């Protein structure tokens, strides 16, 4: 029994003397069984601290309490201990050695009976013990001996295993495997000593004896000093004291050493990152050469990033700010010291003693690292913290101001990489430059031109006037469109895949934002993104959706109602705008979302300042739908195929809901306004409809509100006229154009134009008499009820035939379908042809009208959310 183990458990014996005896006896049994108590021995400092105290307590323990009843055992044990203590005063270190010996004997026993399970256990214990006995990286000799023996034995066993057909039992085999792996790993550390042993085992063992007692006093004071140092630093911060008990000297020479220790502790548990950061800050102060500075800064920045890693929490604000500043300094240093470069894939400089110097034929001192990753990380951290902040607070705005400085960093980074790329010998991968330009683009594409201009001006001010960018020359930075264009075309030429697509989308977005509808539309259509956007990653799909919406809004601003509706349909018609634009998480009604998914979704959310106003979006969509649907509703009337021709299901549903209401109060929200306007428009009261639409407040968010309102008023007048003609045509023989123009306050030329358009699209069975300025309606063109019923019936019948065919095909697996298919299809076509012919006469208005529109029917709709 060792004091050490006692000490380890002492905290509990102090706390309650009743339990003490119990714990004592337990302790004894456990030590006898050689079952080490990992928990207590693992935590190193703790044990040491307490073992000091326990040495006092040990004596006071015994007579107390109930332990008397256990006197026999206890006394015998303690006697034994006493005997040992008297004959040879052993230090804690020696005791550990004894333990070690015991364990080794255990392993040897295991070897004798070929019990690998036991060996594995003992070996684990041995390794734990040995850690405490190491001095200066040298393990005890006996341990080395044991290792070698064990390895030999193991190899032997494995060899035997291969020859004999008899199998080991499961636990044994498992034990063997465990040992094998551990030995492999373990032996690397002691390779030197093992080799020495193998060379001359006797000599090795002899030298052992003298060496053992020497280091025994070292451990304790070292740790005391360490803990003391720790406390000191925390409490006052007099002088920083290092691990060895001596004060930490921050000299330029020792910088690399410190850096190395910090780097090594990175990623490990129980490392105090705050402390490391403060050390590095001090190191940076003493750093002299650019090389030192660069090294320190890089380590420092990555240490700061480490603070923010893990989970959804973002980096603390002050650290972000300092990281940003330090990156700026780093870039500045790199700019000034042109012979130092930070580059990916450079070789690590192993020698801590001296800094690398320029050798003959070398142009640069290469330092491994990736500026672009730092910048990306910095950007991501800002986004993350913006996601977490409530966007309606001043904190958000404050945080948002950091974007300017971030943009500067990105810009400088770009300049740096451009400078690197000038030198072809460095072979800087194109990808880094692409990435950094992509980041820059991400920060400007959704901003109005004026804002971009300010950003640009600020960043140019930051860099010295001698610098210029090849990609985005200083002279061209005045115009935001020009800038976006150059950035995008650069990416388009020099990259591929997703970055290329994203660049395209960003440019389209920017164009759409600045009312360049036709350019944006043409780019959208020529990009062919709608076909394969579903294969892209989700962030790109979100960008695609955003771009789509922006193009739709742009079309609306231009007064192209049909195009706007068509473009917005896909996003707004789904009722999941929030999700598709990554502006909020939808509540999932039908299936549970795993926390993992939810976290991912939250990460994807855009920060608030990038949002597209959803209410405005809905308002635009509904207004467009109204302008298209109301005439359509009037046109189709009550014919049985009404259901087939629906432009916007969402709108129809809302309208139905609105009509079902018994009492409709004055409109409150956007939706109410649009619905009441629809009702008024359907009844021909276009003035009322215009009033309703104009009183929607959200139009104020649009640039040039007035012109949009006039545009809408004009549209409503025209659609009102169309609706009127559809609804009341059956009741008139002739209608004077003048009457119509009076009714809708439209120019008579405009009325004639609208009427002729309807006539030419065969929406209206009428003729325009130009002499008398009247519309003459033709009668009897409308289908009778029987005719329309017959048409429906023929449609249904052909659908049935198709279903039957499919079933047959399915049944016969396509073998016996040659005849029946042909036959069936012929029938179907006949029916369809007839239906189409008749229907075309009346409903032919659709296609020609639609032909002018754009059709973005990408498959990105659901994929963005379903992930």
């Amino acid at each position: 029994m060792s004091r050490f183990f006692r000490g380890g458990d002492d905290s509990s014996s102090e706390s309650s003397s009743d339990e003490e005896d119990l714990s004592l006896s337990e302790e004894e049994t456990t030590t006898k069984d050689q079952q080490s108590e990992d928990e207590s021995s693992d935590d190193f400092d703790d044990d040491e601290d307490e073992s000091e105290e326990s040495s006092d307590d040990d004596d006071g323990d015994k007579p107390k309490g109930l332990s008397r009843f256990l006197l026999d055992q206890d006394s015998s044990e303690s006697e034994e201990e006493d005997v040992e203590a008297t004959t040879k005063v052993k230090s804690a270190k020696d005791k550990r050695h004894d333990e070690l010996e015991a364990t080794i004997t255990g392993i040897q026993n295991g070897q004798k009976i070929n019990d690998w399970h036991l060996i594995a256990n003992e070996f684990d214990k041995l390794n734990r013990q040995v850690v405490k006995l190491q001095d200066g990286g040298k393990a005890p000799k006996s341990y080395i001996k044991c290792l070698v023996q064990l390895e030999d034995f193991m190899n032997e066993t494995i060899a035997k295993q291969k020859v004999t057909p008899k199998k080991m039992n499961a636990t044994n085999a498992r034990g063997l495997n465990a040992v094998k792996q551990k030995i492999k790993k373990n032996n690397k550390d002691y390779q030197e000593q093992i080799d020495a042993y193998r060379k001359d085992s006797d000599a090795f063992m002899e030298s052992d004896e003298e060496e053992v007692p020497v280091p025994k006093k070292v451990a304790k004071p070292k740790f005391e000093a360490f803990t003391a140092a720790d406390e000191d630093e925390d409490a006052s911060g007099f002088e920083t004291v290092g691990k060895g008990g001596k004060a930490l000297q921050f000299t330029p020479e020792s910088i690399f050493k410190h850096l190395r220790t910090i780097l090594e502790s990175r990623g490990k548990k129980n490392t105090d990152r705050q402390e490391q950061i403060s050390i590095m800050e001090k190191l940076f102060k003493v750093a002299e050469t650019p090389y030192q500075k660069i090294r320190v800064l890089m380590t420092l920045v990555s240490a700061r990033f480490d603070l923010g890693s893990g989970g959804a929490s973002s980096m603390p604000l002050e650290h972000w700010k300092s990281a940003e500043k330090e990156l700026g300094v780093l870039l500045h240093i790199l700019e000034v010291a042109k012979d130092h470069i930070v580059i990916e894939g450079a070789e690590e400089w192993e020698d801590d003693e001296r800094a690398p110097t320029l050798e003959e034929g070398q142009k640069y001192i290469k330092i491994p690292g990736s500026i672009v990753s730092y910048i990306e990380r910095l950007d991501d951290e800002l986004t993350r913290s913006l996601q977490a902040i409530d966007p309606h607070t001043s904190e958000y705005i404050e945080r948002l101001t950091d974007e300017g400085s971030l943009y500067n960093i990105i810009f400088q980074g770009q300049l740096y990489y451009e400078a690197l790329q000038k030198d072809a010998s460095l072979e800087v991968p194109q990808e880094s430059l692409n990435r950094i330009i992509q980041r820059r683009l991400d920060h400007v594409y959704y901003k109005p031109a004026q804002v971009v201009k300010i950003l640009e001006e600020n960043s140019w001010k930051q860099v010295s006037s001698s610098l210029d960018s090849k990609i985005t020359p200083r002279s061209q930075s005045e115009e935001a469109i020009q800038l976006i264009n150059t950035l995008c075309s650069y990416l388009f030429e020099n990259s591929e895949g997703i970055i290329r697509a994203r660049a395209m989308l960003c440019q389209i977005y920017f164009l759409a934002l600045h009312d360049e509808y036709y350019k944006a539309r043409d780019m959208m259509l020529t990009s062919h993104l709608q076909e394969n956007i579903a294969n892209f990653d989700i962030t790109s799909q979100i960008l695609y959706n955003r771009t789509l919406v922006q193009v739709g809004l742009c079309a609306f601003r231009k007064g192209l109602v049909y195009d706007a509706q068509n473009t917005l349909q896909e996003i707004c018609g789904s009722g999941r705008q929030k999700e598709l634009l990554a502006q909020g998480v939808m509540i999932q009604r039908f299936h549970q979302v795993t926390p993992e998914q939810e976290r991912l979704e939250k990460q994807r959310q855009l920060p608030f300042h990038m949002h597209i106003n959803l209410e405005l979006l809905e308002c635009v969509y509904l207004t467009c739908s109204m302008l298209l649907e109301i005439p359509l509703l009037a046109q189709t009337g009550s014919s049985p195929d009404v259901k087939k021709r629906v432009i916007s299901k969402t709108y129809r549903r809302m309208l139905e809901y609105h009509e079902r209401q018994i009492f409709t109060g004055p409109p409150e929200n956007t939706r109410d306004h649009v619905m009441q306007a629809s009702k008024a428009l359907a009844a021909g009261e276009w003035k009322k409809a215009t009033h309703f639409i104009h009183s929607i407040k959200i139009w104020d968010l649009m640039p040039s509100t007035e012109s949009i309102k006039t545009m809408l008023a004009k549209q409503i007048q025209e659609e009102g006229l169309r609706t009127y003609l559809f609804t009341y045509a059956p009741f008139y023989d002739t209608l004077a154009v003048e009457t119509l123009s009076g009714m809708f306050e439209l120019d008579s030329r405009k009325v004639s134009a609208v009427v002729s358009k309807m006539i030419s699209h065969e929406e209206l069975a009428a003729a325009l008499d130009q002499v008398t300025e009247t519309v003459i309606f033709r009668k009897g063109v409308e289908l009778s009820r029987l005719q329309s019923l017959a048409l429906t019936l023929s449609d249904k019948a052909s659908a049935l035939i198709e279903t039957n065919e499919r079933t047959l095909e399915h049944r016969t697996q396509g073998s016996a379908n040659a005849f029946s298919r042909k036959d069936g299809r012929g029938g179907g076509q006949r029916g369809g042809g007839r239906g189409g012919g008749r229907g075309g006469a009346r409903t032919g208005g659709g296609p020609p009208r639609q032909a002018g529109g754009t059709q973005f029917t990408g498959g990105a709709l659901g994929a963005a959310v379903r992930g």
Partner: protein
Amino acid sequence: MVDAQKDVPFKSAQVEALVVMKIVKHCSSTFPTTATGFLVGMDSNGVLEITNTFPFPTVDVAVPDNQQGHQNDASSIAAAAPRAKANIVYQNDMIRHLKEVNVDANNVGWYTSATMGNFVNLSFIENQYHYQRDNDKTVALVHDVSRSSQGSLSLRAFKLSTEFMAAFKEAKFTTESLQKSKLTFRDILVEVPVIVHNSHLLTSFVHQIPPPPEDPEISLPASLDDIKRQPAQFPPHPSFDVLDLSIDPFLEKTCDLLLDSIEAHYTDLNNHQYYQRSLTREQFKITQWQTKRKAENAVRLAAKQTPLPEDEWQRLFKLPQEPSRLEGMLNARQVEQYSKQVDGFTATVTAKMFAVRGNLLPE
């Protein structure tokens, strides 16, 4: 009663004019609600003579069921009337009364009204089954009010085929059983020719009805005495309904009904598809379970343990119930009915159209 010919199935139904008149009156008075009633008579020598009829009292039955407040109540109650318990009692009472006055009073079936032949439904089948189960010599008379209004009386007699009776008795209309019995929608109902029979008295009365006067000019009676001596004899009113040329209403109605049938068909189809999907799913699960169990058993066998039973899946999994195909069959029969109707209709209408056209053409 007619024990000797008990096994001989009747070939035709002979309906008394009285019965026809009563049915027509009852049905058209309740139109568009369905009307049902009871037929009495006897069968002799393969002819089912229907000699009298009386309607089922609808009001009495409607009272207890009124709480449902369903709109179709009147119709549905009337349609279900032949099976209602109260009506069976009523029916037996009536038969007893009729027997007392010495009328042929055997239960020979029931009648129902219909619109454009939309009578093929489950209720109809159940009613007829209810009658035919006890007595094979029963018939269902269907009076189509809508079609009769177009000029010609539409009165048809139906009975269930014996195969269908057998199938319905087992209430098994799965795909499998239908394949085995080769029962198709055509085999559900058997139509029986209807002969309208007049009593001699009636025939002689009909003969007494004066023909239309040959001379268009009728001499006015000279004095009151003249009128007393020779009361004016009016010729029967000629029916012009037959010459009705409006085709649209009929076809429209048929179209509507056909569309309804197609809808019903789709519903049925969906049900069946749902069943098939769930069946496949369930079967897949079972196969998975079986393979798993097999593997388990193989392991157990290797470890010298007793294998687990492999038929436990019957207990663990429950295959979904196949929806009855009866609904679909009836629907098919109904569609056939409509199509035949249109077919028959066009035959007469085409003739009419030619007549009209011939008249219009310049000679």
